[in-house]
């Protein structure tokens, strides 16, 4: 016997007590926890109200990226083919989301607020190639449902800074 014969009983007592408590396990994906507003998920590229892309292809996001997952190839706007407001636009804009660490530096670096990190996090794919998001994919509104998109369906927990602990 161990030097403390009642130790095991005491330990099992804690276990048995938990049986009668409400479980805290959340059944993802049936139940989806909502996200905090500043959650950093999949990137989004934005357009101006007139439809022109905000991104001018300056590559500052690629320079800021610590994971080196952004590739930008710029080209010149012409009168016939105007894509962005400035002289240049991003002909190719790719983010390799299998490398991205979602640090948000690209968002900080962007001088035109063209890229932001959204709330989408369900990004798994069967192939690594599918994780390279092109400009078209990044410009499109999120295709997959994310909890925040439908606030009323899910309860919103009180943010930790409001609980006072």
């Amino acid at each position, binding site marked *: 016997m161990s030097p403390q014969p009642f130790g095991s009983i005491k330990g099992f007592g804690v276990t048995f007590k938990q049986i009668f408590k409400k479980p805290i396990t959340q059944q993802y994906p049936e139940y989806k926890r909502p996200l905090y507003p500043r959650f950093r998920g999949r990137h989004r590229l934005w357009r101006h109200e007139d439809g022109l892309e905000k991104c001018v292809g300056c*590559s500052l996001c*690629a*320079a800021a990226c610590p994971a080196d997952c952004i590739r930008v190839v*710029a080209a*010149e706007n012409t009168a016939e083919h105007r894509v962005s407001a400035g002289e*240049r636009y991003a002909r190719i804009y790719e983010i390799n989301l299998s490398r991205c660490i979602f640090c948000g530096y690209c968002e900080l670096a962007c001088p035109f607020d063209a890229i932001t990190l959204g709330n989408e996090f369900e990004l798994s794919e069967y192939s690594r190639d599918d994780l390279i998001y092109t400009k078209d994919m990044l410009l499109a509104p999120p295709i997959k449902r994310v909890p925040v998109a439908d606030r009323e369906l899910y309860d919103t927990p009180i943010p930790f800074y409001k609980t006072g602990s």
Partner: protein
Amino acid sequence: MSTPELVTVTIDGRRAEVAKGTGLVETALQAGVEIPVFCYEPRLGPPIGACRMCLVEIEGMPKLQAGCTLTAQDGMAVRTAATSEKAAEGQNATLEFILVNHPLDCPVCDKGGECPLQDLTFRYGPGNTRMIFPKRTFEKPIPISPTIALDRERCILCYRCTRFSESVAGDGQLVARNRGAQSAIATFEDEPYRAPFSGNVIELCPVGALTSTQYRFEARPWEIQNVPTVCAMCPVGCNVSATTREGKVKRIVSRNHPEVDEGWLCDKGRFAHSHLRAEDRITEPLLRVRRRGFSPIGWDQALDEAERLLRGAGSRIVTALSGSETVEGAYGLARLLRGGLGAHSAVLPEEAGHALDAYRLPLSAIRDAELVVVVGDDPVSERAPIVDLWIRAAQRGGAELVTAGPSGTLLAAPGSAAQVCRDLAAPGSEVGRRLRESARAILIWSGQGGQGGAHLAALARALGFDGKEGCGAFHLPATPNGRGVAAAWAAASDEEAENPEPISLLIVSGDEAASDPNVRALAERAEAVLAITMFHALAVGWADLVLPATSYLERDGTTMNLEGRLQRLRRAVMPPAPDELAWLSQLAERFGIALPPYPALVFEELSPVAFGGLAFGEVGERAALPPRAEAAPLPPLESAPPPPTSDGHYLQLLRYRPLFSGAAVERVPELQFQRPPREVELSADDAERRRISSGDEVSVRSNGTSTALRARLDRRLAPGVVRIAEEHAGDLHALVEVVKA
């Protein structure tokens, strides 16, 4: 020269001892203090103090001074922005003023990330602006030439570009229009900036006002790699960096070698790199199947075919070399053909030799000369453009330039350069006397013939250049690496070449050889032709087997420039097919010859024979010039029979190979405007006699052939001579008649 007087200057409390007259910026640098500058650039001549960025406080002077315009004086006490609040405030205000109308389009600007204005604003400038009015706008970008775009909004009027155009290149086409606040950089009469050195203004511009159209929006400084290599477009061998991004060469920038190029590049070297991605680039071996058709084959089959051709021909092979191969590539070819097959016969476009090694000087010595004599038919800028800049630098320094040629200060008939050399060596010659007396005289041979410099060496010897440190002679060859290729070919075997007749196999190595009409004529006599070339158009119609060639930006190895300086080529990008040495080594193995596929090992093998055992690693990023060779006996001088001269009616045709010509330039759309127009140059006398004025359409005829060209009067051209660029001269004979169309 006496040693200059030393003065002591105090900068920010640090003492610096420099020669009297040294610029304050350099003096500060020696003391370890930086004086920031935009407009100051010693290579452009005297400082002008336009940008006011270099403001410093000098003890005893009430106001801030422009540091770049001052020179070091004894006892001077200078305080820069680091220690003087007044100077810091002055620089801060200067930057705020410069930025008043400078647009904030750094994310769009090509200079962003490598911009002196960005860097200095970050370090010395104000963090914000008080400018609340709309900034000045201009139409932008303005293409001042197909290669350069001008953005006047970004211009800070430092006048670097106009000073380059006016005093360094001497073309004077880029000017500052209007005065004061209305000043704007423009080309004269808004004509395109068409000059061989125009691209340098892009590199000089401290902001993004002058940018390259080729590099426009291609890459940003943090996305690129710079590969230090050497330009192999002409025999000067300027040191360059090839900027690559994602495996492609995006631009060429200079990598200042103060003895070779002083940081200047010609437009051919700067912009011709896009021929690497030409549409008709050959990327796989081609075998001729029908009369004119090629079918692509695999490398195994290609090597089988090549082996079959070589075995069938044995020693009855002639190799046409381009003189643009690397030393290692040429040696590999020579090892295979001379060692394996006993095929010793090779032709180079021009004879290369080492006769001038006894009068060797760095190219920068031309600048310090007091007398420069150029003999030969071709303008220096068409053969070795940077040499032209060195001569201009010498002239700015007060040197006298004597050109003895068909359009020179001493008129000489075309093809008579050897005779000119003999005349200069003769005791009665006035120029010869001054050459003998001068301590700093330079001879330059710019033209055909010359036996690789032997004629000039004979002249230098006769003028007593032996033992005179400041006197030297340069032969400007037509090929970029003719000397290196000749040395490598000679290093592979000692046996004498005999010209086989009939030729079983002609091996055409490289694009220059493939576009050479003499090589084409040789191919008429050959049973089979194996071409190693980069472009489809050069192989069509005559080659039986085509193996893809690589460009100088895709090779590793060494190359020798006109001074005899061995320089290192580094591979900037991977070629689309294996390079020459890779398949040569495989092919050599089939003939029982061990040839390593790596340039370093090949160089190790040939260096003891050809370069005195120099190690590959010792060639270095800024190659040193080998010391002067001992004066050796000269090869027997041969004089080509003088070409037929004009009889008044028939005029002597002088062909020249323009700088902007060749297979690479033809494939660069941006450089087409630089190629010579369809013109014939006539002397004023001949034109007047034929009632032709500049701009007239004329017909140039000789036995059975004729070509329509536009006439242009050249007042400096010798009477009885017409000059036509090689590519427009076609099949014309040595004597032509010019008739108004």
